[in-house]
Every structure is written in C-alpha cells, then in structure tokens.
C-alpha cells in the first residue's frame, strides 16, 4: 500500500492558494494585494509539507512570506505619495484573459491526456539530511554559483536604489 496525499488537506490548501491568487488579482488596493499574495504563499508552503518537503516548506515561508512580502510592502509604501494612491482603478485586460485561458486550457488538456501515468506515491521519502548531503556533494558547484548570483543581485540592488548624487 503506497502512501497517499490527504485529499481534504490538499483541497483546503489548494483552495487557499487559488483564493489568494484571485484575491490578489481582483482587489483594487495594492497593499491588500500584497497580503493576498502572502496568504497564497503560506498555502503553497503547506502543500510542500504535504509532499514531505519539510526543508523547502520552511524556506518557502521564510523567503516568500517573510522577505519578499515585506520587500513588496516597503516598496509599495515608499512609492505612494498619498494614502489614496493605493486604491487603483479596476484594470481588465481581455487579451490577457484570452492568453491565460488558452495557456491554462492547453496545459489542462495535456494533464488530462498524460497526467496520471504515475498515480501512486512512492513510500520512501528521504529527509532533510539527505537533501543537504545531496546539495553539498552532487550539486555543490551550482550551489556556489547560486550564492554568487545572490551576492551580485544584492550589490546591484543597493547600487540601483541608492540616492542620486548629481
């Protein structure tokens, strides 16, 4: 008997993730949109837990729900001149809706056609220690490159956002 994902937990978390995304797209207030995104990200972290990716779940909540959302809120508040500016007119794009529907439809058709080749969850799931060992042996070089990418991005972000001294 192979392991399964709890259907009820999946339904709740998936509903929360989609609700957050829809809320982000439909709210007129930019600050509310940032909080909807936060809710959606926490739900996705819960989905990672369901998939027994504990390390990723924690890092996901830390990075997306913690750092990225706070950064978003900071930039939103720094770029608002008045409080009323956070409420925006309703923005509807027919072309965007068509594009998203076509893309989603194609992907859904592909999933319906080929999705259930593997339906059962394998029983063995390695733990965080195995992930760490893999990361520092087989993926050591990409890991170092990733840290360089972060360093360069950090320096560039400081460089771009500093005050002009003209």
């Amino acid at each position, binding site marked *: 008997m192979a392991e399964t994902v709890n259907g009820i937990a999946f339904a709740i978390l998936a509903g929360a993730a989609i609700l957050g995304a829809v809320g982000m797209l439909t709210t007129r207030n930019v600050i509310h949109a940032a909080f909807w995104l936060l809710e959606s990200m926490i739900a996705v972290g819960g989905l990672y837990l369901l998939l027994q990716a504990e390390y990723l779940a924690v890092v996901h909540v830390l990075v997306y729900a913690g750092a990225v959302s706070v950064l978003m809120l900071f930039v939103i508040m720094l770029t608002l001149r008045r409080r009323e500016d956070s409420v925006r007119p309703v923005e509807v794009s027919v072309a*965007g809706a068509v594009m998203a529907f076509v893309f989603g439809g194609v992907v859904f058709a592909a*999933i319906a056609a080929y999705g259930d080749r593997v*339906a059962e969850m394998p029983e063995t799931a390695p733990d965080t220690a195995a992930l760490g060992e893999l990361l520092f042996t087989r993926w050591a070089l990409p890991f170092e490159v990733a840290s360089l990418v972060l360093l360069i991005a950090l320096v560039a972000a400081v460089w771009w956002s500093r005050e002009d001294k003209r």
Partner: protein
Amino acid sequence: MMQVGPSAFMALAAVLFSLGLYGAVARKSAVMVLMSLELMAVAVSLNMVALSRFVTPTEMTGQVFTIFTMVVSAAEIGLGLALVLAIYRQTRSIELTRMDTLKG
C-alpha cells in the same frame, strides 16, 4: 478518501500560473506585475516538488531545482523592486503606461 495524484498538483500549478500570467499582462502597476511574476515562479516550483516526490523521490532533483529557482526569483524580485524605486525617483510614478520614453 480522495486519491490525490500528481495530476492534481499539476492542475493547481496550471491554475496558479494562468492567474499569474493574467496579472502580469493586465495590471498597470509595476509592483503588481512583479507580484504576478512571483506567483508564476511559485507555480513552477510546486510542479517540480510534486513531480519529484511522485516520480524520483530518492534523487530529489526537483527539490534541488526548486532551491535554485527560489534563489533566482529572490534575486529577480530584489533587482525588480530596486529598479522600481529608481524609476520612481526619476519620474515620480510606477505606472507602466507612463514608461514610454523609448516609444517611437
């Protein structure tokens, strides 16, 4: 109890990605577009983690790739927001419709 296979996760990721795609095209605020991009990146990550769990659980390639995706999207969001701040300093606006300096 419902059986939740990888296709359920793939369907959810497709929904999240489509919503992010719509947001990236439709919204006119630069910060909102960046938020939508984050949503799309997360949808792809969810796919990778789910398929890694269902198909090759012992190699964890999907989880390692998700870590790298996270690094890249964190760098992207940092640079994107720094750019938004720099543009705001220049033009006092972050509306994408007003960034038309190069328009012929």
